[in-house]
């Protein structure tokens, strides 16, 4: 576990800085004093079992939820004191598919680009550029609900980086997407990273974890491991990330104790056990 002390001064090197960030809901600590930093243009994988606290941590970084204690800076802005400025500088793609299904492809782009304050002319020029790049030019006037899931996810990513944010937060962006589209998706991620956009991504796919520059693995609200995939494999004497992950996840007590988990939206059955999750507003 990394124990760095950061200051705003070295923010020219790191785009996200988190120090002792904590979020509790009543007696339950979803995120427990996590500290890390992410450099500009880095692809940072944020891993953890369901309920480990990933989504809660990410929501705090996006200014969607206030930390209970600790500090966090995204793009140089305090997530607690300047959430609105933080929001201007980030892109966000949520776990659920998050475009308007009843709007056309170009209308979705127009809407979200407009929300981020982009100028009309620039939007229409860039729309065509973007659509050509992801191969959706022919679908420009199609309703989003008519697109296959993989295409939708690609479109959602393009929308999230359309305004060229400093950081883009991707919450399980490739869930339910076929391997080929996932591959293309990661190509898009690399391309964005080359342009200097920092990628902060959560995923359940361990092969995807290998694509990241650095990975943090959360267990029970704490960051238990943080390094490059290669070093993590060395450290845990594992052949692949899957093994690393399982070695770490075995420590998790929250699953064994059968506690109510506060992480993301929804209700699901996983590993044969019913899990009621909520997004942390009610407990």
């Amino acid at each position: 576990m990394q124990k760095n002390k950061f200051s705003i001064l070295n923010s020219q090197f790191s785009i996200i800085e988190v120090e002792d960030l904590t979020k509790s809901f009543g007696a339950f600590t979803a995120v427990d004093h996590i500290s890390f930093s992410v450099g500009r243009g880095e692809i940072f994988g944020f891993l953890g079992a369901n309920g480990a606290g990933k989504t809660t941590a990410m929501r705090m970084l996006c200014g969607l939820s206030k930390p209970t204690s600790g500090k966090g800076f995204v793009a140089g802005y305090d997530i607690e004191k300047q959430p609105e400025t933080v929001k201007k500088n980030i892109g966000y793609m949520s776990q659920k598919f998050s475009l308007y299904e009843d709007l056309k492809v170009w209308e979705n782009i127009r809407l979200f680009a407009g929300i981020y304050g982009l100028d009309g002319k620039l939007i229409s020029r860039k729309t065509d550029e973007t659509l050509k790049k992801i191969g959706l030019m022919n679908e420009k006037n199609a309703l989003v609900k008519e697109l296959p899931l993989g295409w939708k996810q690609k479109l959602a990513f393009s929308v999230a980086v359309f305004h060229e944010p400093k950081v883009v937060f991707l919450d399980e962006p490739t869930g339910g997407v076929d391997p080929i589209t996932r591959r293309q998706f990661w190509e898009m991620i690399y391309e964005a990273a080359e342009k200097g956009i920092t990628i902060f991504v959560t995923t359940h796919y361990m092969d995807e974890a290998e694509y990241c520059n650095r990975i943090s693995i959360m267990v029970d609200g704490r960051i238990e491991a943080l390094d490059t995939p290669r070093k993590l494999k060395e450290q845990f004497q594992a052949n692949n990330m899957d093994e690393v992950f399982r070695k770490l996840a075995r420590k998790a007590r929250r699953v064994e104790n059968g506690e109510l988990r506060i992480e993301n939206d929804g209700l699901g059955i996983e590993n044969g056990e019913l899990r009621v999750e909520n997004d942390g507003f009610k407990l």
Partner: protein
Amino acid sequence: MLVIIGIPVFQILIIGFAISTDVKNIEVAVYDPSNDEATNRIINQLDASKYFNVARRLKSTSDVDNEFKKGKTGLIVVFSENFGENLYHTGDAAVQLHVDTSDPNHGQTVASYASSIIAGYQQELLQETNIPIRINPEIRMLYNPEMRSAYNFVPGLMGLVFMLVCAMMTSVAIVREKETGTMEVLLASPVKPVYMVVSKLVPYFIISWIIFILILLLSVFVLKVPITGSLVWLNVFTLIFIVVALSLGLLISTVVRTQVAAILASGMGLIMPVMILSGYVFPIESMPPVLQWISGIVPARWFNEGAKKLIIEGVPVRSVLKEMMILLGMAILIITISLRNIKTRL
């Protein structure tokens, strides 16, 4: 479970026992220039019955004309001069029953109850005196002389429609965004929640206004309901109510998480009270005091009363000032609560 079993039980109790279309506790105003034994006995008998409650004595005929516009009175009894004298000497005395028949069923019931009480008195007298006396109650229907039900249901229906369009649709529209996930993306964007909410409400506001104008046109040209009051104030009054309905929808959407819950909440929490407690179906004055008090927090009740006054009775705007102020107050209160909720919940 509590909801599934509780709601029908609650409904049966409310509809079965507490609420009825029966006429009860109607406030009566009396203009009695003769003030003799006969008139006093009639007044006392009216007052003693459970249907009527003699509340006011009027001093002049001009008071009679203005009485209904104050909004509380359901029946005005106007005796002729020298009522008792005429009764005993000519055997013939006139009494007018002025009834507010903007709700025809209700008005008719009021009139027939009052007539039968007077007829009962006549019977008593016949037995006492053995003179062939006759009291002629002359019934005057005000505001809706043709007894057309459209006069009553148009304002009531408006209240229902706006609750449906504004509250239900708004809450569903906002909650749908929560369900699909677009809400989260919007919240992660620099848009202020307030602007987001306003832009969600504006289309429904405009749609509601268009609906309102449609209802008015249909009422006037198809159902032939005359709009006797000021059109401008009727619009102002309705728009205030629309804002209340929209803010209720907003409030629901800040509390619930799914579209189904939004529909249930607005259906059970808004539409049902509007049907039962707004005076649209069941007259409020017949309800037990507790329900009357509860009906006070149903915005449609105030809209209903105000709209009826403006459309059918054609009163000047100051007569609906109370209703207007109540609705305005509700709007401000609900919007404040929902905006506070949005920050933490949406």
